[in-house]
């Protein structure tokens, strides 16, 4: 079978909001609302949670111009498009980071566990994808839940050689069902990014 080369990535640049969240950047009247405003719709089953954090560059400065996307299954571990998936869980959202603070936030339900191709279940997690000026290929990572016992036996985390880095993928409970996961592109706490 012919294997064509994947189209090269290029940075999303400083104006990614124009294309991906135009209403956020003041271009209204083209789309009724920005795509991916909500992870869930009214009536979604499961435990309501909030995932929030700040993305930092190698100077430790919040990346206020970044866009982050989140993708997850429903509370039973089924993705939109899978048989039996909760119709109130599209499971996809994007967030333009706050122009002042750089903070992102996703209000959602806690995802269920999903299978791993070589067997077993992966711990509940939310896939995250980050683009911005200066990022040449979108950064793919995951938020796991530090207080979920399944996280201890997750098959992806088990593959990570530098065990001290696993904590970069653990969203920490902050009370009131809020989880915080701060992301660092460089430095001693550089977040683990995936090639998958």
């Amino acid at each position, binding site marked *: 079978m012919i294997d064509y080369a*994947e189209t*090269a990535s290029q940075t*999303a640049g400083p104006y990614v909001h124009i*294309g991906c969240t135009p209403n956020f950047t003041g271009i209204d*009247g083209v*789309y009724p609302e920005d795509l991916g405003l909500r992870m869930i719709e009214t009536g979604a089953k499961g435990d309501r949670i909030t995932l929030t954090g700040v993305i930092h560059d190698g100077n430790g400065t919040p990346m206020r111009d970044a866009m982050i*996307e989140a993708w997850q299954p429903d509370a039973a571990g089924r993705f939109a498009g899978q048989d039996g998936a909760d119709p109130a869980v599209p499971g996809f959202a994007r967030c333009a980071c706050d122009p002042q603070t750089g903070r992102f936030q996703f209000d959602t339900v806690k995802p269920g566990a999903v299978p*791993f191709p070589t067997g077993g279940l992966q711990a509940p997690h939310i896939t995250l994808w980050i683009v911005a000026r*200066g*990022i040449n290929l979108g950064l793919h990572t995951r938020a796991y839940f530090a207080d979920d016992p399944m996280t201890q036996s997750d098959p992806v985390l088990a593959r990570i050689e530098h065990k001290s880095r696993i904590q970069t993928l653990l969203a920490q409970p902050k009370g009131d069902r809020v989880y915080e996961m701060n992301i660092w592109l460089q430095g001693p706490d550089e977040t683990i990014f995936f090639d998958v």
Partner: protein
Amino acid sequence: MPDEAKLGSYAARLRENHPVALHPPYRTSVKRSPTYAPISFPSSPSEEYGPVFGHADLGSLDHDLLYNFGEAGASAIGPRIIVHGRVQDQFGRPVAGALLEIWQANAGGRYRHAREGYIAPLDPNFGGCGRVITAPDGTYEFRTVMPGPYPWPNGPNDWRPAHIHFSVLGAGFAQRLITQMYFEGDPLIPLCPIVRTIHDAGAVERLIAPLDMARTVPMDARAYRFDITLRGRRQTMFENRMEGL
């Protein structure tokens, strides 16, 4: 279309088809490039499924940047062009239902954005964003104006070649891609530090859309063709023969 259930994991991404993370001539990449190698694992449902969009989610002018922003019937200013192409996976299968979102500067090289300070004026009838969903055969088409090149604060005198940004959401989240399309014959392409983050000449060449006279609309708009290849899933053996071709 092959039955998704008979497809296996996504083929590993070949990094040489992509830009490097750290390319000091693109100055912002210096502090925004991870230093560790990314960690690989076989794709799972988290990467093999992706958000689902339908044609009903789009408005009738979403793919027409000439008219989707200004007063009804008022056209954006600039050379009228059609941008079209086909989205396929790396094994040549069409990617139907992919959401393409585009954004670009106006004909003078000015973006409609709070952080943009270029001297060129805004066009009251040009917003600069559009979107379309690929047809069952993977094809798509936009109508817009030719974007202008523009200077940007990097080196002392860097200019971006004319380009259109593309965001692509395919069938699986592993296919997620943002890229830029350039125009055949633009002398700024080989000078651009962002283009040069890609070290493979063929990979750069594939981002350059050729003029497509066959799709030009006489006395109306020129056409450029931009084909996109996303990652693909390998086939799994099923009843001792290959399925999904």
